[in-house]
């Protein structure tokens, strides 16, 4: 005999799981939508004045990552963000928003500048990841990402990071260590792309959808895991549907988060930011410690 109530409960559960799965895949696609607003689209709408700071003063100017001095609600801030390109020529020039080490060196330069003048730092995260090329490796990609993370750890000025599209791996984290971390509703943030995860764990990049469901790169999951502080609403249909509305929603959230970051006493910011990230992680405790007799 089949009990109808049990069957209904089982089906409802399956529908709920399906709904979450389709929401996850929607976010992956919306985060990568070719019309999604990029850092410069928001800079145009949020800042009254802006001056782009170019070059790492050592090797070149990496256009995949932009830094600027900008005026935000009457005060000067340093803005740092990945920048994808809109058309093929610009995408090629900006390496699809994948920085080389010189991009991160430029970011460190901008953090140091902010630190000298006490300007708050606003970052906009939107990259598939740091560029995985031979030249990037030869010029110390890993070390420069590590140094950028360290520079953000050490800053005593307020820092607010917002994931506005793809928060891809270490290339994203390099500019995302902040007092307040926000994520747009349909942005994604993950340790590896769904395709990369599928290629390694499923041994088939075609299983990206499965990988995305398994590792849940969504804003909701990041909030639940304590990795971000705020989810920023997007207009119906996604951020690309209405750039102005999207910028207004981001502005509201950004002002709030910046006010919270500014309320932290400067002398405590470095320690509190470190404590914030120290608390991230989930683990258990074994009953009997092993290796005790080593």
């Amino acid at each position: 005999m089949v009990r109808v109530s049990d069957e209904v409960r089982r089906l409802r559960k399956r529908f709920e799981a399906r709904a979450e799965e389709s929401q996850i895949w929607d976010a992956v696609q919306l985060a990568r939508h070719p019309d999604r607003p990029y850092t410069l689209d928001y800079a145009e709408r949020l800042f009254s004045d802006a001056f782009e700071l170019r070059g790492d003063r050592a090797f070149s100017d990496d256009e995949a990552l932009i830094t600027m001095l900008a005026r935000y609600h009457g005060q000067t801030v340093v803005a740092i963000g990945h920048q994808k390109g809109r058309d093929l020529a610009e995408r090629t020039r900006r390496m699809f928003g994948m920085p080389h080490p010189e991009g991160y060196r430029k970011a460190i330069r901008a953090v140091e500048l902010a630190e000298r003048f006490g300007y708050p730092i606003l970052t906009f995260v939107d990259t598939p990841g740091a560029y995985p090329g031979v030249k990037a490796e030869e010029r110390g990609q890993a070390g420069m990402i590590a140094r950028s993370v360290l520079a953000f750890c050490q800053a005593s000025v307020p820092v607010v990071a917002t994931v506005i599209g793809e928060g891809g791996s270490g290339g994203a984290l390099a500019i995302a260590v902040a007092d307040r971390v926000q994520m747009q509703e349909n942005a994604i943030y993950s340790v590896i792309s769904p395709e990369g995860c599928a290629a390694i764990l499923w041994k088939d990049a075609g299983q990206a959808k499965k990988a995305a469901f398994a590792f849940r790169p969504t804003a909701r999951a990041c909030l639940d895991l304590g990795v971000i502080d705020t989810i920023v609403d997007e207009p119906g249909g996604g951020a690309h549907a209405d750039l102005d509305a999207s910028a207004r929603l981001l502005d509201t959230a950004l002002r709030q988060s910046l006010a919270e970051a500014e309320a932290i006493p400067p002398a405590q910011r470095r320690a509190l930011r470190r404590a914030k990230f120290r608390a991230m992680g989930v683990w258990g405790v074994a009953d009997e410690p092993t290796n005790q007799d080593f």
Partner: protein
Amino acid sequence: MTPIEVNVERTAGDEGGGRRHPNTCPSCRSHFRDDELRHSLRVCAQCGHHFAVGAMERIEQMLDPGSFVEIGSELRAADPLAFVDLRPYTDRLLDAELATGLGDSLVAGSGQIVGRPTAVAVMDFAFMGGSMGSVLGERFCLAADLAVARRIPLISVTASGGARMQENILALMQMAKTVGAVDSLREVGVPYISVLAHPTTGGVIASFASLGDVVVAEPGALLSFAGPRVVEQTTGEKTAPDFGRSESNLRLGQLDAVVPRRELRGELAKLLVLFSPAEEEPTGDNEPLPQTGSDENPVDRVLGMFGLGRKRG
């Protein structure tokens, strides 16, 4: 019909897609018993190839006998995402613990090198490819806390394929967490020495492992953010055979030294001397220096560099 290969050493190699025995040298195909390898610090006696070393054996090689005290050994990975790929994450964890006897891919604690106290954080590649998850982050932080509290140096030895995908975003956050720990060392002026073993890649080399006050590597280790396969598949570029290897990293200015395993303990001892305060004259003259190729006490070697030989009792 394929000809029968009569050279026993050659058939033991991994050519033709065959599986190689873990004690067969991948570069010269010499084969060793496990105790022979252990005795030679897992360095091939024929060609100098450096085999992988487990965390506990590495600690034995590096530290004074009996000086190691582990911390955070009770920590175990949780499964916050209830992650299942081809197998559940919890199954993989169980297998890894049974295979290595370790609770996770990093062992933290304190010990002494030639009588000098140091905190240590040593990775084991055999535990899920040395992947970095929440437990690794916490154990590294515990080692850093200990170094700060006792004002003793921290030495890490890394071997990792990168972040642990099964913990996704929390694994990524361990980069920020461990760099924060390095920052806490820098804040109080405690030295951090990073030893990179084969392979140190992905999130580990892009965080704490690159931030040592001194960074050294074992010979032939792959040290890169993206591995050669990822580079070739993503960019279509060809990678040279020495791509990302210790020796090219040294040439490109990413390392302070390439140190063969036989010299590692001696070099670390030397660095601990160099990082010690000036007024603290080293004692313990007759400390033997077991297990390394050098029979000269590194303390004496360093003092000798400055023309300051010590009297032998």
